[in-house]
């Protein structure tokens, strides 16, 4: 156990830090979070800058055009970016973290050369069409159908909760090609061009009031067979390759952001006087210790991935603990804010005349609810942990329900 950085890791950090210090001041104003075109422009500009500097696809293999950084370097990358206040991956998320790595692992040479470079450069934005109205946690029950017609699949059905579908160029789409009852064995992974005729995107308003995700209706959308990744009916396995990219370091940015928010909250508590209450102090202490513990767990996971290629237990249990701690912190913020937690307009402190920063905390409180839902609900995470790690018996399966 030696937590010291190697000279190579230190050099990587120093270069990156210098680049961030030089680059971040040149960024344009942040986009309004309700203005999707502006958000797209902002995020793709950032991705382009990363690309030009050789930081795009930090975790992607060199053959795929990525940096091929080691797991530890990936961690350093996220750490430095968060500490410097760099933008998040944003709309690049699906392309860089799901679709791209899947195409790289399972796609043909033609697919790799067509799609990967433009994900890396930020030119193309991808979305993820997995969940359906009738199939969320039980993804294998999905019903969006694809029927082969010559050299095209004809796709009809609907997807839901598709994040930033409004501004996406491509969709990683899961469709049913097997029989209705085929479950995992009858799913195929397709690349869908979002400009294809027959697609209808209807934005859904989230509890934060903006339209983060959409409903996606497909009426006889024709998708060329050459857009299939992997074999027909082998899409579930292909998808699992993607999902495994999500564990491990998937939430490092969020964790570090939470640690920063907690420090801000502590300052807030001192300004409002709430810090004098030992109950409040202890909640801060518990949360800080939990985030520290999760940060240590992340380092261990990354080190394990570096040594063995597999993130191990840490990657699987992380999300469960992190999402709960994140929600607890968000609750604490709301209690500290009191009345100022009831509005998004900035409120200034009665005596020091400075903003309370309440808008960010209120926004964060609302967003905290998706922590235990998106990317696998906490209940599903607990099933995974108890079955795959503790070896407890599986749920009895009754088959897909309508």
């Amino acid at each position, binding site marked *: *156990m030696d937590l010291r950085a190697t000279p190579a890791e230190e050099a990587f950090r120093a270069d990156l830090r210098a680049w961030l210090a030089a680059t971040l001041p040149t960024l344009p104003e942040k986009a309004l979070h309700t203005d999707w075109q502006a958000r797209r422009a902002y995020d793709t500009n950032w991705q382009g800058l990363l690309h030009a500097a050789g930081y795009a696809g930090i975790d992607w293999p060199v053959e795929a055009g990525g940096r091929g950084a080691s797991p530890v370097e990936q961690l350093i990358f996220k750490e430095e970016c968060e500490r410097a206040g760099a933008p998040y991956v944003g709309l690049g998320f699906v392309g860089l973290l799901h679709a791209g790595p899947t195409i790289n692992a399972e796609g043909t040479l033609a697919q790799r050369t067509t799609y990967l470079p433009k994900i890396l450069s930020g030119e193309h934005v991808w979305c993820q069409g997995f969940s359906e109205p009738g199939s969320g946690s039980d993804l294998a029950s999905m019903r969006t159908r694809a029927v082969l017609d010559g050299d095209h699949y004809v796709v009809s059905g609907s997807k839901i909760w598709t994040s930033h579908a409004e501004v996406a160029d491509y969709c990683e789409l899961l469709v049913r090609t097997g029989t209705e009852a085929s479950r995992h064995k009858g799913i195929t992974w397709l690349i869908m061009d979002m400009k294809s005729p027959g697609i209808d995107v209807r934005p859904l308003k989230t509890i934060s009031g903006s339209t983060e995700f959409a409903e996606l209706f497909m009426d006889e959308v024709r998708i060329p067979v050459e857009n299939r990744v992997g074999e027909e009916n082998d899409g579930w396995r292909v998808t699992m390759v993607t999902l495994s990219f999500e564990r491990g370091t998937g939430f490092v940015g969020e964790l570090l952001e939470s640690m920063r928010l907690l420090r801000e909250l502590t300052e807030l508590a001192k300004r409002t006087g709430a810090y004098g209450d030992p109950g409040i102090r202890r909640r801060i*202490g518990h949360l*800080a210790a939990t985030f520290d513990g999760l940060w240590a767990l992340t380092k261990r996971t*990354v080190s394990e991935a570096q040594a063995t290629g597999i993130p191990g237990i840490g990657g699987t249990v992380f999300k469960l603990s992190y999402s709960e701690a994140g929600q607890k912190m968000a609750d604490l913020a709301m209690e500290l804010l009191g009345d100022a937690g009831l509005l998004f307009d900035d409120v200034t402190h009665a005596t020091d005349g400075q903003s309370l920063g309440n808008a960010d905390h209120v926004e964060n409180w609302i967003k905290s609810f998706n922590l235990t839902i998106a990317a696998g609900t906490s*209940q599903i995470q*607990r099933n995974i942990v108890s079955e795959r790690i503790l070896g407890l*018996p*599986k749920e009895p399966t009754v088959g897909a329900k309508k």
Partner: protein
Amino acid sequence: MNFQLSEDQVALRDGLQAIVEGRFSLDAVREREDASSVVDKAGWQALADAGVFCLFVPESLGGLGLSITDGVVAVEVLGHALVPGPIIGTMLAAGTIAGAAEGTTLVGIAATSDRGAVPGVLELPSDCDGYLVLPSARDGAAPATYLARSAISATLATRSLDPLHPVGRLNGPLVSGTLELSGTADALRRRALLLTAAFEVGLAAFALELSVAYAKDRYQFGRPIGSFQAIKHLLADELARLEMARAQLHYAAVVTDAPDIAAIDGEVYGLSSTQLEWRAVAGAKLLCDQAALSATKTAVQVHGGMGYTWEVPVHLALKRARVHATMLATSDQMADIVASLTH
């Protein structure tokens, strides 16, 4: 950066594991239940021979010269087996107090209470030959001292909460000893907290293993109870708590061993290396308290009526967790420390 146990650490853990399995089987440990003296001399000697007590003593003085991180790895094994006796005090006293390293002097830890009203209790009053006396945490500058058992007036409790970790009532406030220990009391306290936390991780892992095994074995409604989500989700949460606690424990041990790492990490939060160390150690103790208390409570629940029996060993882990989450410091005190270092 490497967060994996080294080969030597794996060997240390596995070697100790083998000794513990031979000497401290559950049956053997349970023979000491409710005895006034819980230390089995032959077993204690075996631990001494294996180098457990001289682990931190420099090689030049005949010890193993190992680090706190190594110590944490070793103590987790002992916690998992519920090994009774003043392990942590003796490990920390070795090299200073004659006979501790060799297993002939048994050294407990006595901390003067911060809590005023209760004069406090003394661990293992019939087993220990002496105590490391830690001054109240509020009195940071006072030195740690050593006090012979004979210099402390304490009465063995007629019944202690933990039958494997009996305590006595102090008959008056604890006074400092005459022998001043080298190093600051503050550093000694952090080491004691870390080793205690390591013991707790062992307890949590033991309790979780018992629960998982029982959940696979016990059938109700024609299914193993471990197939009910109400059970499996409890256990998944315990594993998540345990792994987070263990990771923080190892991190805190590493920064205790390496002030240069503490300094680098401290910079990020505007903390000195000692402050960073405190934040890491207090956080680790807090998370390990929670992991041990929660995993052992859950174990009682998962075992149903069996969990409420003396026969099933779950209660032994539960009670020891209570002991270690209480004696040296409470979770609330740890949370206060972490909060005071969050800015």
